């Protein structure tokens, strides 16, 4: 029965035409379909076009890699692996090493993570577990707004607001309270590793907190209810039921934040002081991988100088690729199967 209508729809016009002794047995429908041809060519070429665009993403990543390697071969040949352990940075005599920049990048990023992660966790816990429903949407909107502010505007704010605060208020306070640790020695100009870390922390907070919020939302409600049913307080429920279930995803979110912090350029360049030396003091000016490229690339005279800067870019590219890849895998491991975020 269900087959019959389909057959009759196609067959009946044809049957009407063919039964009389007309020389043209082709139905209008068939004629129409014949003139249209099959959709195979269009379909295949469309699929191929879409595939080509999708593969262009691969090509872009490989291309970036290839171009960076090709353009840094001078420096790769001249310094080899030692490039990353040498402290010298002397464009005049052509002596290059990336250690001060690696130190600056790691110090600022890790310090920024140390500041941002507890706060981001707090925000995520507040948003998913404690927040009254009417407040939830505006607050998450505000934190996402933080993510939309361009890095150069953060830098501008840091130069004119954060640097004076660091120089006049926060810096002296830190010297007085934590001066004995040796991390807060030397002259405090307001610019330096600590200022750069603070602005980085402000910048990566929204990323970590919104990802963590997504991951915590993905924890099934039954887990929470089970823990609550055993008589747990709300904090115990969060700790046992939510955080423990989502810890891999949270680590992934933190690593995504780390990836962003490692590659952040403009805001850091504006407040880190730009001085390629390694100091224990957090007040000392430093330099990061990204900011040395931003500052010196346009005036890089000489092929070796240029290729050393490209090699720094290559290192940055590889490190962020690895960090991001691992982080994505971790986040996927947790949120896979969960419905995508509605808002």
């Amino acid at each position, binding site marked *: 029965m269900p087959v019959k209508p389909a057959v009759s729809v196609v067959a009946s016009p044809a049957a009407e035409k063919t039964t009389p002794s007309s020389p043209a047995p082709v139905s209008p429908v068939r004629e129409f379909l014949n003139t249209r041809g099959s959709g195979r060519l269009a379909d295949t070429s469309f699929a191929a076009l*879409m595939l080509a665009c999708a593969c262009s*993403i*691969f090509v*872009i990543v490989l291309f970036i890699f290839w171009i960076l390697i090709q353009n840094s071969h001078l420096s790769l040949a001249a310094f080899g692996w030692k490039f990353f352990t040498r402290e010298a940075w002397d464009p005049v005599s052509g002596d290059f090493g990336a250690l001060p920049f690696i130190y600056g990048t790691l110090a600022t990023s890790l310090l920024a993570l140390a500041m941002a992660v507890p706060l981001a966790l707090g925000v995520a816990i507040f948003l998913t577990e404690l927040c009254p429903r009417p407040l939830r949407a505006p607050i998450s909107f505000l934190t996402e707004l933080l993510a*939309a502010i361009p890095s150069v*505007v953060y830098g501008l704010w840091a130069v004119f607001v954060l640097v004076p605060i660091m120089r006049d208020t926060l810096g002296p306070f830190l010297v007085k309270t934590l001066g004995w640790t040796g991390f807060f020695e030397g002259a405090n100009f307001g610019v330096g590793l600590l200022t750069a870390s603070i602005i980085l922390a402000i910048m990566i907070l*929204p990323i970590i907190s919104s990802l963590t919020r997504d991951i915590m939302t993905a924890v099934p409600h039954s887990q929470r209810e089970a823990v609550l049913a055993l008589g747990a307080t709300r904090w115990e429920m969060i700790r046992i039921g939510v955080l423990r279930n989502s810890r891999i995803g949270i680590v992934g979110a933190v690593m995504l934040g780390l990836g962003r912090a490692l590659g952040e350029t403009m805001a850091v360049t504006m407040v880190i002081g730009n001085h390629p030396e390694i100091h224990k003091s957090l007040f000392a000016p430093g330099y990061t991988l990204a900011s040395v*490229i931003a500052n010196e690339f346009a005036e890089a005279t000489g092929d070796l100088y240029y290729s050393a800067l490209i090699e720094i870019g290559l290192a940055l590219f590889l490190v962020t690729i690895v960090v991001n890849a691992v982080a994505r895998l971790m986040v996927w491991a947790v949120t896979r199967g969960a419905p995508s975020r*509605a808002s």
Partner: protein
Amino acid sequence: MSTQPIQAQPLGDPRKPSRANILRRYTADRIVSGLAVLATVIVLAPLAAILFYLVYKGASSLNLAFFTHVPAPVGEEGGGMANAIVGSSLVLLLASLMGIPVGIAAGVYLSEFGRGKFLGNAVRFTADVLNGVPSIVMGITIYSLVVKPQRHYSALAGGIALAIMMIPTVTRTTEEMLATVPLAIREAALGLGVPKWRTAVSVSLRTASPGIITGCMLAFARVAGETAPLLFTAFGNQFWSFNLNEPIAALPLQIFVYAISPYDEWHRLAWAGALVLIVLIMVSVTLVRVFANRGVLKGGS
């Protein structure tokens, strides 16, 4: 976050929970709740501070000249960023023209053809990773690729750099939005004899179009504020320029140059520029929210 195991209570002895223990647990609960609220306040404080300062500083230095004049030479009062606003729009237009079609097409592949295939997953993963590549690396790559062989900075190079940064965002949102289109709609189209490519273009993409527009605007907002990829590609220009083959001014670049300069007049302009940039981005993000809420298809698969 603690790693201590949950201690099992011996079963035979139904102990009454001690008062001290209950007190400790509830105090911990209160403290953590308090800390979470405190963290939220601490996080929102800088946002409020940045926005307040921006509006306060920017609004007091915005005037009509800002939108109509080119930058004044050092030491002269006045001047504006008209050329930077136009330059930014030009570079962004170029980037959108190149980046958005490729991004949408890749998203269509992921959603309509590559679902569940190894290649599809690999492309999705690569897009996510490309999203995390630092913008400065994109800048030096395009410099080596376009600027160095041509021997001059150009608006075109800036557009290419930004286009590459837009692709992953557009791809991922397109894919997510297409995934919300119910299969039944596609099947209905295919059942009427519509070819697959026509189904993808006129049915899936059309149904998901509000969401896809959202994604494109998000990508646009993201690259609108990017400075690092433009430093060595578009390079900046103090004068009017409409030639795609020449260095061109861009709003974020101009803000950067003015912010690190030692002149008060330029600082003033930097604040005004930052306010204009932020307003542009906020407006597009807010529009996105409106579109996104309207565009969510009810009963998606």
